[in-house]
């Protein structure tokens, strides 16, 4: 940090030609930055565009060599076929049901656990919190397969009970998010309630929860998209009739020869990502809060 010490003398050396030069340099800089940003933006958006283009092509256009960028006529029929070739509404219903179920349960349980770690005192709280933090680092896939084996023996496979249990068990990641938020709320609020003879149950429900609406939304939206986008758990735990849209889209679109039906699958995938993108675009700040809040203030 020696640079900060020498910097005090620097402003005096700024002469007019110098600043003109710098302004010009800044303008070419901005142009260069925009060029770079545009190129990168094309790379990041490209896959979405190519997906939608594939979804409106005929099969012949899709396999044509050299690749054709635009179809002759837009094949909107691919979307109807995506909806009817498999039982799309049923899988959509399963996905929505599981996502809502898990998101509501895990948001409430994580809020309660986060409140406990933020505002209450108890023996062994510190080691418990360290344990919670270390489970954030535990790859979920390690426990998922043995959980599957156990649940299969307990008859919980091919039911939605695993999602209920996962939801009730709270997510360490969201607990941490809530804990950070609750810990920042001034103590006077809670002290006043305690003096009035208010129990912690009511303090949590009537004071803290109403204050934490933004974090509740963040937790709900994050957990909703986790389940909506999950592949491995429904693939393992659910039979093909009760599975989610993600599993159905990944594997159920077949042409009569049993090969993947690329254009119809693309249409289905487009339908499948639209809700996520819509939620994301309207609620981006909640996602940013979720990603940043968990990562930085450790």
């Amino acid at each position, binding site marked *: 940090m020696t640079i900060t010490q020498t910097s005090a003398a620097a402003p005096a050396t700024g002469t007019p030609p110098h600043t003109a030069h710098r302004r010009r340099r800044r303008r070419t800089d901005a142009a260069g930055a925009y060029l770079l940003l545009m190129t990168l933006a094309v790379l990041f958006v490209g896959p979405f565009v190519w997906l939608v283009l594939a979804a409106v092509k005929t099969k012949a256009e899709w396999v044509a060599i050299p690749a054709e960028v635009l179809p002759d006529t837009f094949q909107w029929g691919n979307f109807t076929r995506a909806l009817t070739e498999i039982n799309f509404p049923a899988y959509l219903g399963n996905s929505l049901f599981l996502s809502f179920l898990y998101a509501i349960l895990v948001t409430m349980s994580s809020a309660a656990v986060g409140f406990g770690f933020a505002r209450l005192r108890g023996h062994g709280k510190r080691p418990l919190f360290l344990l919670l933090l270390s489970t954030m680092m535990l790859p979920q896939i390690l426990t998922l397969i043995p959980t599957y084996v156990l649940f299969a023996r307990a008859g919980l496979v091919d039911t939605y009970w695993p999602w209920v249990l996962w939801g009730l068990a709270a997510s360490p990641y969201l607990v941490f998010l809530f804990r950070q938020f609750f810990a920042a709320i001034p103590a006077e609020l809670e002290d006043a309630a305690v003096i009035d003879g208010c129990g912690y149950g009511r303090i949590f429900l009537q004071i803290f929860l109403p204050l934490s609406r933004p974090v509740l939304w963040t937790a709900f939206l994050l957990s909703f998209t986790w389940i909506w*986008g999950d592949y491995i758990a429904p693939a393992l735990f659910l039979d093909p009739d009760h599975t989610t849209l993600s599993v159905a889209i990944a594997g159920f679109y077949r042409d009569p020869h049993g090969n993947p039906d690329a254009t119809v699958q693309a249409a289905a995938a487009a339908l499948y990502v639209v809700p996520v993108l819509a939620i994301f675009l309207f609620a981006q700040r909640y996602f940013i809060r979720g990603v940043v809040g968990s990562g930085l203030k450790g």
Partner: protein
Amino acid sequence: MAPERARRGRRSWKRYSSRTFYLFVSPWIIGFTLLTALPLGYALLVSLTNFNGRTDRWRWIGLRNYRELFGDADAVASLVRTLAYTAIAVPLMVAGGLGLAVLLNRRLKGVGLFRTIFFLPSVVPVVAMAIMWKLILNRDAGILNALLEKVSIGPIAWLVDPNAFYALIILTLWGLGGGMVIMLAALQGVPAELEEAAAVDGASRWHVLRHITVPMISPAIFFQVVTGVIAALQIIIQPLLLAETNQVGSVAQVPQNTHLFMVQVYQEFFANNRYGYGSAMLWVFFLVILLITVVVQRSSRLWVHYEVDSEADR
């Protein structure tokens, strides 16, 4: 009299508070016990048996699964591959996220739009991600090969050996927006005067980035490295879904180059029905991940600067 009552009151309050604490955190304690500790413990027991997941006729075989694992060339190769993937993907992810964040951390018009665009892919479900990239990387109909042909590079089979590995890296990198957002938030906490002062002193932009910005945000970078390493080690769905196959999720058709350790574990469990052996693999992997995490944590002392330490300098 009064202090006695107060003390008793305080003690019962303490007891009430402690009980309430456990009441509030009980969902996680019970959940952790039943859904994390129990499965891991169960896997440890199963790893000492020859259980095949179907019949109840199994017996204890001691450490034989573990001994077999160290001589299992396929398993060892898949572990090495996983480590290689981690060693390549994580630095690229972190550097890419940092690069984008630095680009976006200036007062330019439309920066918010670009941030949205770069962040967007990281919320796309993995199934959709795999479908999108298979459409792009398709050998015959994909746009990437069509573009490469314009500069006379012959069609490349991206989704099979040996290129499948690059396809996996590309897919991973597309989702680096989450890390970018964390870096961007960290960058916004770096006092602008510090960087400006250095620039006025004639420090090149690279110099400022290397010696001021990066040390200032090293906790965020460290967080990215830790979570990135753990995410990279456990990767399984992407290789399964990227494989060109008629049967999605079938392990048999995953290319050799993306046959990572968890894919191998999955195969032992669900294709070979070797639950005992697969459980042993899970436990060895668990220990490997633990070891790597500890090493990364230790290394942080060398390069991560926390606010508390730098306070004295400023």
